[in-house]
């Protein structure tokens, strides 16, 4: 099974638009939206939901005021500044609580409940391009890394069941917990960059992260004509690190027009940029050896 994940470091470089186009061109893959925090791929794929399950992960501490003796030990122990006194009773701020259980275990009055909490919902859906595994983290919740791991596992199971050899994932921005969870053990990371100071800076960090996890990398320069200077700098960087440059795409509002129509770019326009994306996809197929292994 081959797992290709589309990443960028910097947000807004075009991960989702390109993932949708790749899903269109792949012609038979399990598609996976790993940006569980702010998922957008479904806006292009209009999924028909087949199954849905709550994602329960971690616990939330809660003080029962009627059993609290007001000693304040919990406030001293909490490293997350999640407990503060209000009306002479300590209260836990659920947005700051990390569910570590320290206060629960050491409360002399055993006045703190510790209940499992729902952090999101995950879905198995059907789309015109293939099955989609996706989720939505409840806004302001945590454990996105665990939800990402769960989605990847479900996507692989589904691929096996449907005898599909490719899992194609739209990854989250950044280099932290959900990105690491999206990346570790993947066959190939396709990084969508842009020729700006931020794009270059963040590309270096995400490439370093991929190296750290020994995941092969290919780079796409999107909005390529915005800066000749930064375009050249990214090319030089890829050259120095012997990273294949999969292709460049121009700064073009056709990407947004396609989003507005709820289509992948390759569905929306017949040639031009669509041809460029086809060439990039062919390079990805060659690099990940898609179609040659099962």
């Amino acid at each position: 099974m081959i797992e290709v994940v589309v990443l960028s470091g910097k947000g807004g470089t075009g991960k989702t638009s390109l993932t949708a186009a790749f899903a269109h061109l792949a012609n038979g893959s399990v598609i996976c939206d790993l940006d569980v925090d702010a998922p957008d791929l479904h806006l292009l794929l209009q999924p028909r939901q087949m199954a849905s399950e709550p994602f329960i992960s971690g616990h939330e501490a809660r003080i029962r005021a009627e059993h609290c003796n007001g000693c304040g030990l919990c406030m001293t122990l909490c490293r997350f500044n999640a407990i503060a006194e209000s009306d002479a009773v300590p209260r836990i701020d659920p947005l700051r609580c990390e569910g570590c259980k320290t206060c629960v275990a050491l409360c002399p009055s055993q006045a703190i409940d510790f209940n499992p909490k729902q952090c999101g919902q995950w879905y198995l859906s059907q789309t015109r391009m293939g099955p989609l595994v996706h989720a939505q983290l409840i806004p302001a919740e945590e454990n996105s890394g665990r939800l990402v791991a769960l989605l990847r596992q479900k996507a692989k199971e589904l691929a096996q069941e449907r005898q599909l050899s490719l899992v194609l994932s739209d990854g989250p921005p950044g280099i932290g917990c959900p990105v690491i969870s999206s990346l570790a053990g993947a066959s190939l990371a396709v990084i969508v960059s842009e020729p700006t100071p931020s794009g270059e800076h963040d590309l270096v960090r995400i490439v370093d992260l991929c190296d750290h996890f020994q995941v092969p990398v290919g780079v796409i320069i999107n909005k390529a004509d915005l800066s000749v200077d930064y375009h050249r700098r990214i090319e030089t960087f890829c050259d120095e690190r012997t990273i294949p440059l999969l292709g460049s795409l121009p700064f073009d509002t056709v990407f947004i027009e396609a989003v507005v129509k709820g289509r992948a770019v390759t569905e929306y326009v017949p040639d031009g940029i669509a041809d460029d994306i086809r060439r990039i996809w062919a390079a990805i197929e060659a690099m990940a050896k898609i179609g040659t292994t099962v």
Partner: protein
Amino acid sequence: MKVAVASGKGGTGKTLLSASLFSVWKDPLVVVDLDVEEPNLHLFLNPEISGTRTAELEIPVVDAAKCDYCGKCAQLCQFKAINVLGEVVLTFTEMCHGCGGCLAVCPRGALTSGSRPLGEMRWGRIGSDRFLMGALRVGEAMSPPLMRVVKQKLQGMLSEAAADVIIDAPPGVSCPAVNAVMDSDVIVLVTEPTPFGLHDLRLAHEAFAQLGKPMGVVINRAGLPGSDVDDYCRANHLRVLAKIPFDRRIAETYAAGGVIAEAMGELRPFFSDLADQIRTLVETAAQPLEISR
């Protein structure tokens, strides 16, 4: 006054806006990059860095001579960072959240504090204003602990000399984003009028509304085809503070490392007005409600 510049969707223009607000801000300022996974603000503001420090997280270190393998630490740990197997204690320090629970429950004092590097904190000056940022170590999964260290440093800087604060927050709506905005006085949500922009604005609004802080919206790339962000804002009583037009020259200026309010002088009054709008939003929110007759 602390202003947090946030967004659900990445790449909507948080850094662009933070840099331009910095440029027009009248009062003394500390500008903070809390997007520690991918900090970018320094690339545009070119601060003179005067200090750096490795930020660390407290993790347990086992003293095998004192441990009697009772397993209380492993029972408590919610993050599978410490395990007791027979007469072996295994720590998986990269999983540790630094809650200190294992150290607190150990009956024999067999755990002492060690540390894991989270990343680097850097601070310095930009002209007469101050700058602060965090950069997560590549390979480190947890950004909120580093953000907490940066916020402590910010408190220190503010107690040395009071100032307004502009925070460039990370994208998203989960723990890192909430962590970045939770101590601010006002949240400026940057979005774009595309279906992605609107969808993620909705998520961000939902996430941050729980904090009960005044919020306003800046629509970047206004004029792009797509969803009507205005309708959403109107229906949800979110004030639209400004619209930055979709203009290739803005994208090119940003791509050249320019601060829009400086490199495109004709837009400077626009950003000054926006700064005033943000102030007004905080001040009106601070006014107690009165029933008018």
